[in-house]
C-alpha cells in the first residue's frame, strides 16, 4: 500500500484522538492549603448496558505547580479499602492503579495530601465489569460530597 506524504500526519492526529477518547472518567480539581483538606466523592457503579459492575478502579495525578505535599486517593466500599499515592508532582504519570471489588453501588473516594499547601490534581475512576479492574467499562457516576 502506498501512502502519500500527507497521510502520516493525519494518521498521527487520528491516533492521538483515539488515545485520548478511551473511557475517560476524570475529575480535575484542587485541595486547599490546609493539611487536613480532603475532597470526598461518591462513585456509583451501575450497569449502563455494558454489564453489571464488579469493581471500581482509581488513580490520581498530582498536577503542576510542583509543591511539597504528596497527593493520594483512597477508595472504600463496605469493609474493603485501598489507596494509591502519586510519588512525583507535575509529571504526566498517575499513581499506581488500585481497585476495590465491591460490585454495584456506592464507593467512597477520598483525595487527600500529605502536608500543608495547595495541590492541583486529576482523579481517574472507572467502574468495570470484571474483578480487579478487568472487563469492560460500565456505568460510572460521580457525585461531590465535600470539596476542600
Amino acid at each position: 500500500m502506498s501512502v502519500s506524504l500527507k497521510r502520516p500526519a493525519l494518521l498521527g492526529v487520528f491516533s492521538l484522538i483515539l488515545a485520548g477518547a478511551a473511557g475517560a472518567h476524570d475529575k480535575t480539581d484542587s485541595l486547599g492549603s490546609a493539611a487536613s483538606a480532603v475532597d470526598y466523592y461518591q462513585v456509583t457503579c451501575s450497569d449502563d448496558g455494558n454489564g453489571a459492575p464488579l469493581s471500581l478502579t482509581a488513580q490520581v495525578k498530582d498536577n503542576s505547580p510542583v509543591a511539597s505535599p504528596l497527593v493520594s486517593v483512597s477508595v472504600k466500599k463496605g469493609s474493603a479499602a485501598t489507596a494509591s499515592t502519586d510519588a512525583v508532582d507535575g509529571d504526566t504519570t498517575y499513581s499506581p492503579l488500585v481497585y476495590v471489588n465491591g460490585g454495584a453501588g456506592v464507593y467512597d473516594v477520598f483525595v487527600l495530601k500529605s502536608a500543608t499547601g495547595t495541590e492541583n490534581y486529576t482523579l481517574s475512576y472507572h467502574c468495570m465489569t470484571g474483578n480487579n479492574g478487568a472487563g469492560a467499562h460500565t456505568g460510572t457516576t460521580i457525585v461531590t460530597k465535600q470539596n476542600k
Partner: protein
Amino acid sequence: MHVPPLFRPLILVSALVLTPAALAHTTVRSAITEGRTDDNAVKIEHGCEAGEGQVLPVIAQSVVFPTQSPVLTLSDGSSIGDLSEAVEQGGLAGLMHAIQDRHIFQVQQDKKDTDGNTVGFSGHEGYLDAKLQGRVSFEMTAPNFVADSCVKRLVVEIAIADICNLQVPTLRKSKVSLWIPNNGSRYASKGIQYGVQGVGDPAVMFVNRDQSLNPLPITCGNGLDLTVSPSAADIDANLPIPDVWR
C-alpha cells in the same frame, strides 16, 4: 329549541361525556431500577392552555429534581428522617444529566448545586409544535436502596415548567404550565392565583428496588413506597432559568 323533559338528563350526560378531558401531564417516560444507568426522557404531551381550545407551543422548559431538603412521605404514614435511610447515595443530586438533543431546544444546560452536582436541567430557544409531542432526553443513574430499609420504590416528584411565553409577568395561564407540587412555593402560589395548569400534579419518575439482588427484609412485608418531593425552597431557588425566565 324545546327539549322534552324525558331527554334532558340524556343531553346533560352527553354534554359531560363530550367535555374534553383535562390536558395530559408532562411526565417521565420510564421507571428505572437500582443498579442501572439508562437514558430516559421527559414527555411533553401538550403546550399551554390559552383558552377556547387553543394550545400554545412550548418554547422553553425547566426541570428540577428533588435534591435540597426534599419532602419525604412513606406510604404507611410513618416518618423517615433523611433520604440516606432509604438510598445509599443519600440524595439524588448528581445522578441525572441532560443529553444534548436540539430537536426542540437549541440551548440546553444542566442545573448545578454549590458542589457542582446536577440537580436538574433546562432548555430554551425552542419550539415544540402544539400539535406534536416532545421528548427531552436525560441520562439517569438509579440510586441504590439501603439493604435493611423497607422501601421498595421511590416515587420521585419532579418539578417541571413548560414555558410558552417568556414575557413578564410570566406566571399566567397561557404562558406556562407548572407541573409542580402544591407546596407553598412562589410558583405554586402564583400558579393557583392565576389559574396556571399543573399545580399539584408534578411529573413522577418511579425508581424500583431490585428485589432479586437486594430483597426486602422479611420484617418489611410487601415494603413501602417513599415519595420524594421537591421542597418549596428548592423549587423557588432552582426552577428559574437564569437570564431567561423566572
